[in-house]
């Protein structure tokens, strides 16, 4: 009788342990659904990149970059990435290259038009050209069929009069800074 009682108790204890184990293994879960929505707005962006043949741009990869020709003269040495394609009695030209990349999303447009203008009148004795187009404060069309999502190289020329300062030539030995505004418009 006692043995039977002990046996029953053992069985009860084992069952209790198994139930406890099952309880420990159980996970409490909950589920939910979030309905996310977005509005896909189309648009384009422009950025300036350093061209392998040009000067290294400051803030490359952004829409507000800087290009520094360094010290330039008609006959002296030039910085890396700057060339001097012409020297005449009246003026000389120094040239560098920069890349423009325009990215579009959500548009059916396949090309863009690039325009540029000087933010202010050119300093005395200097003219600025992009792809041989002389810039003014008025918008000038630089390219009408730019391809998206790729770097497109452009020439940037500074045409500098050889005249002395005060005689029509530019100021010397001081940095001369000009801002060029670019606008890309989806075609």
């Amino acid at each position: 009788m006692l043995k039977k009682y002990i046996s029953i108790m053992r069985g009860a204890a084992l069952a209790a342990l198994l139930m406890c184990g099952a309880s420990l293994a159980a996970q409490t879960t909950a589920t939910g659904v979030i309905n996310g929505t977005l509005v896909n707005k189309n648009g384009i962006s422009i950025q300036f990149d350093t061209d392998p043949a040009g000067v290294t741009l400051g803030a490359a990869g952004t829409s507000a970059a800087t290009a520094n020709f360094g010290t330039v003269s008609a006959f002296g040495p030039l910085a890396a990435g700057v060339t001097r394609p012409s020297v005449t009695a009246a003026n000389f030209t120094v040239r560098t290259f920069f890349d423009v990349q325009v990215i579009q999303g959500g548009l059916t447009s396949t090309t863009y038009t690039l325009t540029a203008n000087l933010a202010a009148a050119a300093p005395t004795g200097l003219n600025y050209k992009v792809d041989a187009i002389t810039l003014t404060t008025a918008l000038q069309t630089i390219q009408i069929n730019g391809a998206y999502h790729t770097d497109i190289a452009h020439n940037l020329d500074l045409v500098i009069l050889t005249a002395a300062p005060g005689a029509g030539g530019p100021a010397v030995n001081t940095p001369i800074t000009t801002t060029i505004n670019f606008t890309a418009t989806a075609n």
Partner: protein
Amino acid sequence: MKKVTLLTIFAALMMISSAAVAQTTASGTLTVTATVTGSINLVFNSDASGVALSSGAGTNAATLAFGNVSAFGAISAGIVRSTTATNFTVSSAVDVLVTKTNSVSANYSLTAQLGSVDAVNTWTVGGVGVTNAAAAPITATGTYGANSNFPVAITVPFTTASGTLISNTINYVATAN
């Protein structure tokens, strides 16, 4: 009902109009900086009265070849010769053109110096003796933008063996005043 229809049409037209005039544009700025400095440039040109430069005319690395010269024999056109009891001198006009840009400098100074020693012959540029020991001042008031003739002359002793090649380099330096 008619009013609602009209309003719907009006709204649709407004949307179409808005889409038609909208342009997708992006803008950026490139700030460009340069520092202009004054500079001068020196080139050699053949002088009409002298020996034509055999190479490098219009550059800053030219060659003046007198050819065969002697104290008493025939002499090439463009060479001026003078003879003393112990030596003879051959001379040719050579033009130096110095150009300035972006500078208020009024004139330039010019010096010349032999590239290597010559213990036998005497060299002059513009009448000024030049050696390899130091740069000799040729002019202190050179005029920009005009060919200036600074004759190159070599005085050769009679003791020099026939067939001797005389060759040297003259280094010119123009400095803006």
